[in-house]
């Protein structure tokens, strides 16, 4: 059989295509880290935010700055970077679409946070509109790029599906904020809010993680993709569970919520089994720190999900149920999800910076490795503090301990500061250096 040759790329003159494509993802990741820093500072100034009821306007404002602000911005950057890599065809985004999305998201999230924090829900609805238009841009880009791709495994499917769920999340958010001001929906609004939160958390973040993990982890650890039945089973169970869960919350059918939660948990379990099998086949013996942080976040997330299912199944006294729901949210959002996303950012960000700063010089002069651009100790400190802060904040939310909340908020701010400083050190490599002498 004769070898199959593909044409070689053009000569490495100027920025290679991958390097020029890294600018927008880097901008998104920078924006995400900036918002996480602001949110961490806000929590230090007002540590009781995460001990208030989870539907308190200030708490809602803080969560929107952390989640669709910080974590989502980082994920959007990663999606724009990974879409052409994973799917094959060039990114099918309209001209000016990347700049428009970044602008819409920046303006929208800033206004949304301010509106929630001041309890102006009608304004929050308006502020959610640019965010929604931005998510539509992302979804259409993902869908069109996926359409022109021949890849149809869960890694490819996770892109249009997760971004589709994201559009539904932002649309439902706008609807709920407007309803708070104008009161046109009937029924238990708290259940609608839970549906909105779960479309975002499970629809976007979980769907994305259940797919993209199986692209990135084999690549970073030199592992073979294993669990070829468990992997699609886990992914599609989540996709079946999600509409049931949303319907359960909206209609207020407890049995449906329990069934959907069980399916969701089974889906996560199957994905976890595929991940363990994949990791056991790895050739790179030592797991790097960002990968370890990602995996610790995954374990915390699975445990917290188990707690969430317990909350849905066992009725608790009203006060304990409220505190448990808050602790569940805290362990999931500033906890598990942040550990997973910031862990993966610790791998993606230095690679993007390396691609831009040193990619064009590869083969022409000595260049550092992508893994050597930051300060490893600061990264270790950041990861450790983030885990400590998550557990502390979760405990403070459950026990309503203000002193612990204050300490944990300080630890969270220190964690984000350490990770942001490390990112800044990496970004320093992008600054052109004057030749010595």
């Amino acid at each position, binding site marked *: 059989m004769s070898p199959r040759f593909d044409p070689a790329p053009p000569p490495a003159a100027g920025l290679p295509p991958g390097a020029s494509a890294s600018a927008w993802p880097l901008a998104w990741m920078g924006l995400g880290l900036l918002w996480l820093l602001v949110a961490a500072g806000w929590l230090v100034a007002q540590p009781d935010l995460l001990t208030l009821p989870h539907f308190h306007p200030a708490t809602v404002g803080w969560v929107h700055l952390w989640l669709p602000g910080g974590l989502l911005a980082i994920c959007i950057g990663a999606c724009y970077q990974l879409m052409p890599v994973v799917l094959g065809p060039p990114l099918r985004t309209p001209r000016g679409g990347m700049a428009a999305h970044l602008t819409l998201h920046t303006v929208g999230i800033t206004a949304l946070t301010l509106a929630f924090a001041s309890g102006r829900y009608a304004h929050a609805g308006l502020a959610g509109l640019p965010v929604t238009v931005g998510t539509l841009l992302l979804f259409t880009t993902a869908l069109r790029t996926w359409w022109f791709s021949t890849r149809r495994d869960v890694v490819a499917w996770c892109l249009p599906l997760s971004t589709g769920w994201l559009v539904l999340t932002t649309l439902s958010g706008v609807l709920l904020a407007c309803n708070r001001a104008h009161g046109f929906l009937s029924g238990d609004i708290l259940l609608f809010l839970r549906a909105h939160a779960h479309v975002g958390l499970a629809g976007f973040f979980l769907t994305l993680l259940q797919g993209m993990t199986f692209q990135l982890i084999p690549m970073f650890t030199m592992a073979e993709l294993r669990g070829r039945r468990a992997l699609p089973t886990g992914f599609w169970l989540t996709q079946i569970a999600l509409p049931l869960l949303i319907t359960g919350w909206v209609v207020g059918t407890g049995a449906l919520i329990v069934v959907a939660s069980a399916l969701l948990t089974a889906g996560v379990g199957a994905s976890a089994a595929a991940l363990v099998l994949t990791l056991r086949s790895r050739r790179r013996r030592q797991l790097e720190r960002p990968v370890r942080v990602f995996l610790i976040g995954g374990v915390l997330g699975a445990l917290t999900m188990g707690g969430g299912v317990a909350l849905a199944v066992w009725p608790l006294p009203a006060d304990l149920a409220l505190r448990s729901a808050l602790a569940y949210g805290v362990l999931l959002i500033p906890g598990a999800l942040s550990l997973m996303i910031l862990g993966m950012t610790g791998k993606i960000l230095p690679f993007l910076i390396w691609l831009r700063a040193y990619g064009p010089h590869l*083969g022409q002069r000595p260049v550092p490795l992508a893994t050597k651009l930051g300060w490893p100790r600061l990264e270790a400190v950041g990861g450790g503090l983030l885990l400590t802060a998550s557990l502390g904040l979760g405990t403070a939310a459950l026990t309503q301990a203000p002193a612990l909340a204050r300490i944990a908020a300080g630890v969270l701010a220190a964690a984000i500061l350490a990770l942001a400083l490390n990112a800044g050190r990496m970004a320093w490599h992008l600054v052109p250096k004057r030749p010595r002498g």
Partner: protein
Amino acid sequence: MNPSPLPTLADIAAAIARVADPEFGLSIVDLGLIYDLRVKGDEVQVTMTLTSFYCPAGEVILGGVKAAAESVPGVSRAEVRLTWEPPWTPDCLTPAGRAQLGWDAPRVEP
């Protein structure tokens, strides 16, 4: 002024070996990505693969190999061909590459 001497295979191989995968820190030669290397006069032809079809640094690595080969005195042009046959597997790693990845310990099987 004397013209540059014709390049040798050893010169080209040494230059290409200095190109490292940005993620693993291994030379692409130790990774086993170079399948064939030919020198015809002052022209070089490299046949290589990537660890994955979805390698995000693929274009940069191919460009780096071309630049490294063309940096050797006497080389006027280097052609880098990408092939997926045979596909790369970790078995392509050289003993030096395996050692750097800590792979010489017994492999963990599920």
